[in-house]
């Protein structure tokens, strides 16, 4: 019974060889048997201890900081002053907070929508291509996917350069007025367009390739049958493909939401580490409150609000994951 001791007796598995009486061999002492339930905890202990120290404690500290006044003075003294909910009160009554929340949500929403929408189109396209072309497009997607974020940022920064950037050249060439020597970051809406392009360009390959892998799981007979029954392309997609792909869609959409909700590096680097307030999303705001103007308490409170919003958005996903993992 050596292999099954750690399972509850009710475990309904077919009898495996190990469940038969063990071959005669060295009999484990009573002490060893008593210690056996401790094995998983022993294996887990090092990782959990480290996680508690480097993740659990900072999480607790983040919460406690958010209830404190913690600026330069407190940084030198090494301890903050408890001020209750004042930080949260300050933030929630600041109209700027609501602007930033709305901006973050709109940004994440548009980014996720574009990534998922274009990703689906590319995945469907891949399925309809002849083999050589499909291999080629997949290779292109993988290449873009492999680019580190920082590399992708500098590439697009160069392409959108106001003077010698290839984008301004192209737009001018196409006869669009006003793009000669045009600075894309003068105006937040255009600046966010560039940021959006960098984010979507980086995220799209993963979504498209994963969706394409998922599409190969959709039974072809099912779609064929629907087509025979007279369904059009859209109907087949809507009533056959989409339901089968739903779990993958959900996971990808939630992953994208998490990534796009906390976009930081793209904005920070594209705007040369000095984004103006028109470019603040929650992550940037929290960062600049803490490290820019050394109000760590308020920065922590913004971060806590960000985590709560993110958990609300993704609690749905956690439920899905748990269902997949099982009890």
């Amino acid at each position: 019974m050596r292999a099954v001791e750690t399972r509850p007796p009710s475990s309904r598995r077919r009898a495996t060889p190990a469940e038969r009486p063990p071959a005669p061999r060295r009999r484990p002492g009573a002490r060893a048997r008593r210690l056996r339930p401790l094995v998983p905890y022993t294996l887990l202990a090092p990782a959990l201890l480290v996680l508690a120290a480097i993740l659990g404690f900072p999480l607790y500290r983040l919460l406690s900081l958010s209830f404190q006044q913690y600026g330069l003075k407190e940084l030198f003294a090494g301890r903050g002053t408890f001020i209750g909910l004042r930080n949260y009160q300050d933030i929630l009554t600041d109209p700027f907070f609501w602007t930033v929340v709305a901006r973050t949500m709109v940004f994440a929403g548009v980014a996720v929508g574009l990534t998922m929408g274009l990703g689906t189109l590319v995945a469907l396209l891949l399925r309809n291509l002849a083999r050589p072309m499909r291999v080629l497009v997949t290779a292109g997607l993988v290449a873009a996917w492999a680019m580190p974020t920082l590399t992708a940022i500098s590439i697009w920064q160069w392409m959108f350069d106001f003077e010698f950037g290839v984008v301004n050249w192209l737009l001018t060439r196409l006869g669009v007025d006003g793009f000669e020597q045009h600075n894309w970051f003068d105006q937040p809406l255009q600046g966010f367009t560039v940021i959006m392009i960098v984010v979507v360009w980086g995220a799209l390959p993963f979504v498209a390739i994963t969706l394409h892998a998922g599409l190969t799981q959709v039974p072809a007979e099912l779609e064929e049958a629907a087509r025979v029954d007279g369904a059009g392309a859209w109907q087949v997609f809507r009533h056959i493909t989409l339901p089968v792909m739903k779990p993958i869609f959900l996971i990808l959409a939630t992953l994208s939401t998490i990534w796009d909700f906390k976009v930081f590096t793209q904005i920070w680097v594209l705007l040369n580490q000095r984004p103006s307030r028109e470019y603040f999303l929650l992550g940037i705001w929290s960062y600049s409150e803490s490290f820019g103007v050394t109000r760590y308490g308020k920065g922590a409170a913004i971060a806590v609000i960000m985590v709560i919003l993110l958990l609300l958005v993704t609690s749905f996903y956690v439920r899905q994951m748990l269902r997949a993992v099982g009890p």
Partner: protein
Amino acid sequence: MTRKRLTRAGYNTAAVLVLLVTLFPIYWMVATGFKRGVDILSFEPRWLPIPGTLENYRSAIGKPHFLQDVRNSVLVVIATIVISLALAFLAALAAARFRFRGRAALVVMLIVVQMVPLEALIIPIYLMLDRAGQTDRLAGIIVTYLTFVLPFAIWTLRGFIVNIPEELEEAAMVDGCTRAGAFRRILFPLVAPGLVATAVFSFILVWNDYLIAYVLLRSPEKQTLGIWLASFTTNHGTEWGGVMAGSTLFAIPAVVFFLLVQRRLVSGLTAGAVKG
């Protein structure tokens, strides 16, 4: 028949468009890296880097502290991966192969923890490391990377171990192997490719970091390659050749490792990793 041909032409046009959007930026980076200054700063783009030059690479590598930064990056990446894989392997073994009280809670914790954005945790982590005198130290940044690499590694390795049939180990134990022996002789060789893949995923996560290195490492001789790269993008509009050469160099290790595990990445990421 003609209609079919038309649809095919439509698909191929779309495919060419996708290729252009994905590959042109990368081509443009590589090409710019090899162009002479006068060809980069020309109002009419030069599509080919002819005549080419290695001047940009020379200037990128010649930046102060480049070699030091490479060494720092390699050190940080290796230390992070070795520590997290060792800890994660044991924990993943427990999570995948044992039933115990609190197992469900552990799984929930592993998922939720990966959703806490580092952008939020960086504040308390900075203050803690500051008190311990570990800001601007590589040890501090390694510890910080562990906060997201470790849960990710446990989760991914758990997935790999679950996929190896338990019956193999049970058969070994019937034949007289101890449980530990079965893990060492049967499970470990089978999960080795999974360990390699997890190591590479972790590498990509660490390589993609900017924020942590930016916040924690201040002095130039302590910085990692990401900061080195971002530091010369700030000279706006000046040195694009050097920036593109540097970006290419920065991308090469990531691309090489990425290609090694790309196929597994699709299943691996959707199987539960959340950090980007």
